[in-house]
């Protein structure tokens, strides 16, 4: 299974590289000796590759299940970010190398250039804007919804660049093969974009789920339960995966799409997400009511102990709402009577912040899985006689006992807590291959 996935990943990467390089390959076959010199040709090559990368960005971000499966959507979106920077550098070098290669610096400095050159300049400026807004969203204090709205305009870049290349590039004005290739790349973008932004949302809305229950877990954590429409089955998922949900509640409540971990077990019919009030949108979860309509897209992600399978010794280290994917795994282990030995180290600020406390105790009272739960509080009350303070090497070593070289570690929580845990595990000699983790931010 793992080997099959690895081969699928390699095949996808080869197809990706071939599509990105397709402009170069076709250009080289149709027009080998241009006599323009190396530097000038390098400038053109960078443009062809840069635009190939940009075109594929629309495929990478379209949340395609078959493409995401071997990597996980989180990694795919990180790759999308890294490739955006590479494309930007290549496309920035494009006019510089053309200028150095003989076109002259007026290519960059002259304002009296034809419209097709200005299309290229505008595309580059818009790309710079997109890379800056995405790379520095938090320092710029740009809210997620506003950023997403701006990021959707990235389609303009490919439009401007496609026209610029088609009208300006010697290869495109001369060779039929390059013109066809250009059309194919544009078609890939249009299909991926239209599917992601239009066709699939419409289909999800048509087969929307219904909210069947809203439950308060703690003072600021809520669970919403959802069921598919009559006659349709809930999608299959692995415990620990996440989905995108788009609530349409009316009543003046925001209808935005957000991703949340699935907290229920795959063994049941109901799909639940357990959500902490932590932002503008999540603060409006509590007024959600049974009967509200919700478009659900999933599952995504690779944070699940079921992907490895067969591990009997598991340690879950979670902080706050990071319990949700682990809860799904523990519920699944309970429902399937898994023969496993698990330790859950659950870190919270106060006792009132502990989510699923009773259910965790119930699972711990059973024998399959054998579960030990340790709550660690950073701001305990005077009456608390359990573990307190932050996680460090000493605490982990004491709670976990000796590492037996077979144990798998799953970590999920806020960034600083996860960094602490990684450092402590490293000091205890746990190799990275036995640590899996999930960050909620995509």
């Amino acid at each position, binding site marked *: 299974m793992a080997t099959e996935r690895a081969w699928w990943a390699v095949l996808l990467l080869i197809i990706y590289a071939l599509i990105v390089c397709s402009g170069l390959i076709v250009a080289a076959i149709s027009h080998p000796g241009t006599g323009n*010199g*190396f530097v000038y040709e390098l400038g053109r090559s960078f443009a062809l590759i840069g635009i190939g*990368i940009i075109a594929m960005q629309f495929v990478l971000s379209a949340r395609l299940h078959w493409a995401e499966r071997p*990597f996980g959507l989180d*990694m795919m979106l990180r*790759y999308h970010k890294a490739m955006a920077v590479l494309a930007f550098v290549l496309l920035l070098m494009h006019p510089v190398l053309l200028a150095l290669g003989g076109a002259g610096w007026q290519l960059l400095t002259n304002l009296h250039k034809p419209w097709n050159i200005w299309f290229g300049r505008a595309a580059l400026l818009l790309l710079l804007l997109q890379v800056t807004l995405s790379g520095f969203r938090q320092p710029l204090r740009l809210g997620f919804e506003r950023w997403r709205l701006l990021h959707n305009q990235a389609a303009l870049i490919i439009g401007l660049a496609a026209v610029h290349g088609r009208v300006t590039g010697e290869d495109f004005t001369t060779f039929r093969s390059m013109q066809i290739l250009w059309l194919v790349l544009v078609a890939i973008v249009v299909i991926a974009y239209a599917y992601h932004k239009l066709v699939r949302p419409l289909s999800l809305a048509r087969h929307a789920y219904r909210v069947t229950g809203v439950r308060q877990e703690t003072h600021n954590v809520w669970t919403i339960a959802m069921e598919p429409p009559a006659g349709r089955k809930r999608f299959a998922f692995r415990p620990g995966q996440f989905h995108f949900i788009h609530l349409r509640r009316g009543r003046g409540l925001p209808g935005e799409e957000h991703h949340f971990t699935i907290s229920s077990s795959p063994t049941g019919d109901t799909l639940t997400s357990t959500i902490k009030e932590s932002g503008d949108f999540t603060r409006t979860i509590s007024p959600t009511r049974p009967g509200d309509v919700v478009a659900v897209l999933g599952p995504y992600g*690779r944070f699940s102990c079921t992907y490895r399978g067969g591990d009997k010794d598991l340690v879950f280290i979670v902080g706050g709402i990071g319990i949700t994917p682990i809860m799904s795994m523990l519920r699944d282990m309970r429902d399937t009577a898994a023969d496993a030995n698990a330790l859950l180290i659950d870190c919270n600020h106060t006792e009132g912040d502990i989510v699923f406390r009773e259910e965790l105790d119930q699972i711990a009272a059973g024998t399959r899985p054998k579960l030990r739960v340790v709550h660690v509080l950073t701001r305990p009350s005077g009456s608390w006689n359990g573990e307190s303070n932050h996680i460090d090497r000493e605490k982990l070593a004491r709670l976990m006992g000796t590492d037996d070289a077979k144990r798998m570690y799953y970590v999920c929580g806020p960034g600083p807590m996860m960094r602490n845990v990684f450092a402590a595990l490293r000091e205890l000699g746990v190799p990275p*291959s036995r640590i899996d983790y999930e960050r909620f931010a995509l």
Partner: protein
Amino acid sequence: MERMKALIIVVVLMAATLLATALALAHYRGA
């Protein structure tokens, strides 16, 4: 942790592949 390492390797390899292709073909066509 392994997945992050794999991602970094893939990004570096892909960047190297793309740059090498661009260099090789620019050399071939520009000659």
